């Protein structure tokens, strides 16, 4: 048994889903059968994914811990490692280290209403929470999902969006930025913070979870404040560049806060207390 904290586990790509232009999901299973059975994580945790020969990249675990036996990741092809990962096929091997970081305290939310707000490629970490809560649906009150992307094509998890939309125990509001709509588009046209304000989920006994581009998060937090949400009831996940994932390499810190160790999940109250290092 190696004590090498930088040594990844080997995983096989069991399936690949094309989510949006340049955005893919991998369904991954551990090669090690014992690990496949024993691997556990909490919603909101992240991992480091290897394309051997090119390096490692950090993404959240986009699947829910209620779904055992595999993990899913979703990434946009944007650099060397994600470029390399994009060239892999079903059956190929890659590396995974994790799970790392803290998590969304889903167990504390029992009996509460939930509002999920995501933008673009910010949906994957929120998806993990959504499925986690849908798989334990009876424990929570109303569930609202507000999701927007730049264009219709850029919406990820299109099949799942349709499924959530079809369910009568989920209120789904989809949006695309002005100019991103198609003729057939039946959702909203507008930016996520505005769409959220119009949807006006009630703040009472409600927890909000948001992830997306920094500029979106900034205005979503303002919108939630306007709707009466307290900073303690609003959660987000910070996605900073990481190399080690375990508090050593020195680049994910926001001021004195190491996102990999003390995050990536924070309440809006905690984010507001941080140094302005975003």
């Amino acid at each position, binding site marked *: 048994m190696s004590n090498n904290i930088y040594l990844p586990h080997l995983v096989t790509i069991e399936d690949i889903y094309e989510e949006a232009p340049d955005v893919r999901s991998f369904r991954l299973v551990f090669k090690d059968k014992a690990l496949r059975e024993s691997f556990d994580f909490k919603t909101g945790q992240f991992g480091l994914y290897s394309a051997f020969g090119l*390096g490692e990249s950090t993404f959240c675990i986009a699947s829910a811990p209620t779904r055992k036996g595999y993990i899913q990741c979703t990434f946009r092809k944007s650099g060397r490692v994600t470029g390399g990962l994009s060239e892999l096929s079903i059956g190929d091997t890659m590396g995974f280290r994790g799970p790392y970081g803290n998590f969304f305290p889903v167990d504390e939310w029992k009996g509460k209403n939930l509002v999920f707000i995501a933008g673009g490629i910010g949906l994957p970490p929120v998806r993990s929470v959504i499925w986690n809560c849908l798989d334990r649906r009876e424990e929570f009150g109303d569930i609202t999902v507000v999701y927007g992307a730049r264009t219709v094509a850029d919406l990820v998890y299109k099949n799942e969006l349709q499924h959530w939309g079809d369910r009568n125990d989920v209120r789904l509001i989809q949006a695309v930025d002005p100019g991103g709509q198609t003729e057939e588009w039946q959702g909203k046209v507008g930016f996520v913070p505005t769409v959220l304000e119009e949807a006006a989920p009630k703040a009472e006994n409600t927890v909000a979870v948001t992830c997306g581009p920094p500029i979106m998060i900034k205005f979503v937090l303002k919108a939630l404040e306007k709707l009466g949400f307290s900073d303690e009831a609003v959660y987000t996940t910070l996605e900073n560049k990481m190399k080690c994932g375990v508090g050593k390499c020195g680049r994910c810190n926001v001021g*004195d806060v190491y996102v990999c160790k003390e995050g990536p999940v924070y309440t809006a109250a905690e984010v507001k207390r941080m140094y302005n290092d975003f």
Partner: protein
Amino acid sequence: MADRILKKDNLGKLVASVNGNGGRFIAPVLDARQVVFKDVTKAEEIVTEYILARNSYKEYVFPQTEVVADFTVEKHGVDLKSREVEARETVVFGARPCEAASLSSLRAIFTWDYIDEFYTKREDSLVVVTVACTKADDACFCTTVDLSPESRAGSDLYLLETESGDYMVEAITDKGRAFVEKYKGAFTEGSGKAKTLVMPEKIGTIDLEKVSARLKDKNHYDDQVWARLTRKCIGCGACTFVCPTCHCFDITDEGTQFAGERRKNWDACQFDTFTLHASGHNPRHYQHQRWRNRFMCKFNYYPEKFASKGCVGCGRCIRVCPVRLDITEVMEEFSR
């Protein structure tokens, strides 16, 4: 009170014994007209007239580049092998008391919940033989950060040079005592007259407690003072490489997509790509934000998070800086 004497004539015996045992003997030597820590096999190579080696000895516990795993990509999958550190006895001779104090800071980071055995195994087999300072220059400021040539922290053996060029040896740790016992042929009874230690003058305008309090107040973050004081920084990262407490690294694959190595390589928070996101967003877009991060790391994160020193006052960053950016000037500014 000295436990033993290391006669200069016995230094060669010690070097040979350590090397003969399969260990490494690191000491200050002249290389390209600079005094640097390097492996030595003969005592004659060792320089005694120096203030501080140009490099810190951290590279012997945290190498500039280090393989952590090997991989080959085969048809059936990937063959991945972990690298293990071979823990060889490594003696650093001629460290100064300031830099000796840095090891506990590095250890705090490399053992923060997850144990980096590449670091700990090397540090566990490292013997720090400190020679107290009989010289200083204007860049030395150990006394300003509450250290001095008399500080023993981090040293396994603490040596005072005598007028005749021998060393009075004080064993500080169990590791140091075991080392003296192991190489007892080189250490003898006796005494000598120690040379006078040279204390760098404390910079009176710097108050570490004030610096600490100012940095804790988050409002300073957007203060123009950072841009004003550090505008000339060109982001070369030299300060981080010579610094005995800087620990940032990158993890990268080298080789081809079919076979290669995964490596830990030194990196620097001063580089523009260090925190750059794939999206193009960079939390530390401006150089002064990167400089601010390094200063914060030394005077807020290390002390607050790990109760350890982020800066030991060795002055290497001042000596090596191509634009003469002096960290003590920033400390002075934050002492106001």
